[in-house]
């Protein structure tokens, strides 16, 4: 009881100190991200006179969600998951099947159209459920065997969606997926309308900014929830298991259920992202969930700095930019550059030479692979690795004097 008073004082001091907060790296990163997120629609619309950037941003958003979720499994709990895309697929198909005409042409003979706002939770739970089903028999396995089981699972799931084509349409994909609806929405200069206007009722396919706003909300919610977990009893238990499973068990942590929770919670983020993805692209096919997707998310997590939520977000954004914007755009950049410096002749294809643009495109794999290797060699711990939390630094600073006094008495 006597300890309660100083604890209050400490947390109060923490709450006020704005300058201290800026010094906290996470707060700075989040602050910048929030600012950018707020300004992005307006700025991008005015610069590009279109919505290409906005749709890039909405797509980057689900990668961020995936990376945040996988980080719980890989970064917090230290469980290597090489089949994370499977849960993404489960989330996406849950939404796609229950909010499209697809089931009308299936043995069920009846189309289902459930609201996005309900299905996003259903997708989340389906993914979590499958996470638990897969995790239950396998989480006893040694670390790498778990990785291999998840890899196998990740290979099986898209194939099953492909094979059960009576239900899923198989290779033909599920199309005409319903869009989220809202009772009302505000449009303005950020979406190309000269003035503010209230649209009611509102369908998401009428305004690309809506998806952007939605994904920003989803990401923000995910960050808050995951950060809460990180700073909790469960978060510490995950990290303890990651560091030393035997010692964690000896400290009273039920390693099987704790790992199962990591698996289930990680999967549920993926399911959540899957529902959003299905609505956004409105077309879901098994090919969207192959091994390469799992690998890309893993790269985002590791490159960003495993275990650190803000780092993982940065990692996801950087990788998205690299894979989906920079590398595909390189041929154009290179040919443009060549003409500008008077080497335009290189752009023509002659004989064996396919032309500079084409050649650059053929280099895509090499460039991507080279970047992965180089980044890992330069920063094996990732771009923004996790650090001992700032809060503890402060806490300890307060305690230090007390401790010194204590010691001199002892």
């Amino acid at each position, binding site marked *: 009881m006597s300890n309660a008073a100083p604890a209050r004082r400490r947390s109060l001091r923490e709450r006020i100190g704005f300058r201290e907060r800026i010094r906290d790296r996470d707060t700075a990163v989040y602050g910048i991200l929030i600012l950018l997120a707020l300004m992005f629609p307006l700025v991008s619309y005015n610069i590009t006179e279109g919505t290409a950037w906005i749709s890039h941003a909405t797509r980057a958003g689900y990668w961020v969600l995936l990376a945040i979720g996988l980080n719980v499994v890989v970064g917090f709990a230290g469980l*290597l998951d090489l089949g994370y895309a499977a849960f993404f697929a489960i989330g996406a198909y849950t939404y796609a099947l229950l909010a499209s005409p697809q089931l009308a042409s299936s043995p069920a003979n009846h189309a289902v159209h459930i609201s996005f706002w309900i299905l996003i939770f259903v997708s989340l739970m389906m993914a979590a459920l499958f996470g638990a089903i897969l995790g239950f028999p396998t989480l006893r*396995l040694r670390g790498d065997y778990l990785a291999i089981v998840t890899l*196998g699972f990740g*290979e*099986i799931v898209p194939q099953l969606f492909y094979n059960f084509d009576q239900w899923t349409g198989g290779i033909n994909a599920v199309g005409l997926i319903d869009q989220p609806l809202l009772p009302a929405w505000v449009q303005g200069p950020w979406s190309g309308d000269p003035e503010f206007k209230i649209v009611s009722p509102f369908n998401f396919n009428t305004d690309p900014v809506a998806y952007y706003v939605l994904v920003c909300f989803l990401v923000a919610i995910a960050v808050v929830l995951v950060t809460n977990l990180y700073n909790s009893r469960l978060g510490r238990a995950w990290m303890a298991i990651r560091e030393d499973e035997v010692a964690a068990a000896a400290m009273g942590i039920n390693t099987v259920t704790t790992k199962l929770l990591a698996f289930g919670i990680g999967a549920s983020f993926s399911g959540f992202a899957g529902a959003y993805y299905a609505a956004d692209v409105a077309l879901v096919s098994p090919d969207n969930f192959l*091994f390469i997707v799992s690998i890309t998310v893993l790269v985002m997590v590791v490159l960003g700095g495993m275990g650190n939520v803000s780092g993982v977000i940065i990692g996801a954004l950087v990788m998205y930019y690299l894979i989906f914007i920079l590398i595909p755009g390189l041929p154009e950049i290179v040919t443009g550059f060549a003409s500008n410096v008077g080497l335009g002749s290189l752009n023509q294809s002659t004989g064996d030479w396919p032309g500079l643009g084409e050649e650059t495109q053929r280099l895509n794999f090499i460039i991507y*692979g080279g970047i*992965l290797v180089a980044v*890992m*060699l330069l920063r094996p711990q990732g771009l923004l690795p996790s650090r001992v939390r700032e809060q503890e630094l402060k806490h300890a600073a307060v305690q230090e004097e007390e401790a010194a006094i204590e010691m001199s008495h002892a």
Partner: protein
Amino acid sequence: MSLPDYGFYILCGTAVILLAAQAVTHPTQFFQVFIFGLTQGAIYALVALGYTMVYGIIELINFAHGDVFTLGAYIGTTLLGFFAITEGTFTAINLIALIIVFPVVMLIMGGINITIERVAYRPLRNAPRLAPLITAIGMSFFLEGVMFLWRGPATVHFPDILPTQSWYVAGVFFGVRDIFVVVVGAVLVSLLAVFINQTKLGKAMRATAQDRDAAQLMGIDINRTIAATFFIGALLAGAGGIIWGLYYNTIYYQLGFRSGLIAFTAAVFGGIGNIPGAAIGGLVIGLTAAFSDSYIGSKWTQVVIFGILIGVLVFRPTGLLGMRVPEK
């Protein structure tokens, strides 16, 4: 014996009984599929060995290994182009070309793999565990990119220069090429076994896999031993690449991705880190794939193979041979 063990034996037993029933009722089809599975399995075995050796020694799932295998095939087809080979029959020049190209490709692949280890894995030996995994993935893309850049995205022809003799025995069709694949595979695996068990370097490799620190204390040069492991893994993968090419006559730059995953599954199936296990695992997976293709349908093969993988790991985490698992 524990419950999971029973599960494992029941699964295996059921599979064997079902196959035996097929063998009795439709022997011709059964043995035809069996031969096909055996050849495929021999190639998977060669690739699986590289996965298992590397995993055994540095606990890395070397995702680039499947691409080393494919690159071997690409280099093989290019080198064969320098000889005046005749496709569709078997000439003396074909034989000479094969005798030269096999070791040359194997050595080139060994050299490339040592370089990969040196550049992408060795600097990360004390880094967080996932860092080398990511560089392995990066190297995989890189190698695929090299093949793409070199020969383009389409499939590439691999010369058909093996003898074309074939026979029908009791209705089962098989040719010299089937025998060739299985024999070459068996010879290489036996050579590897002799090497691992008899030579000093082989023993050093086993010691390092058991306990790296202890091996170092015993005066074993760890870097050299690990490099040797990559070298030998690549020799086998290179040979596997050429054999694949000779047998199927088409290759493409992403071949190593899927066959790599399957070969890796074979390595796990046999008990990862376990060399005879990888060879047997390769055969079993090859046979499984063949039987699944013809009895269940090829679109289920992937589900079957990876389903087996999960089943094995759940019921018998030490793999088929159930031997040593490096516990560190």
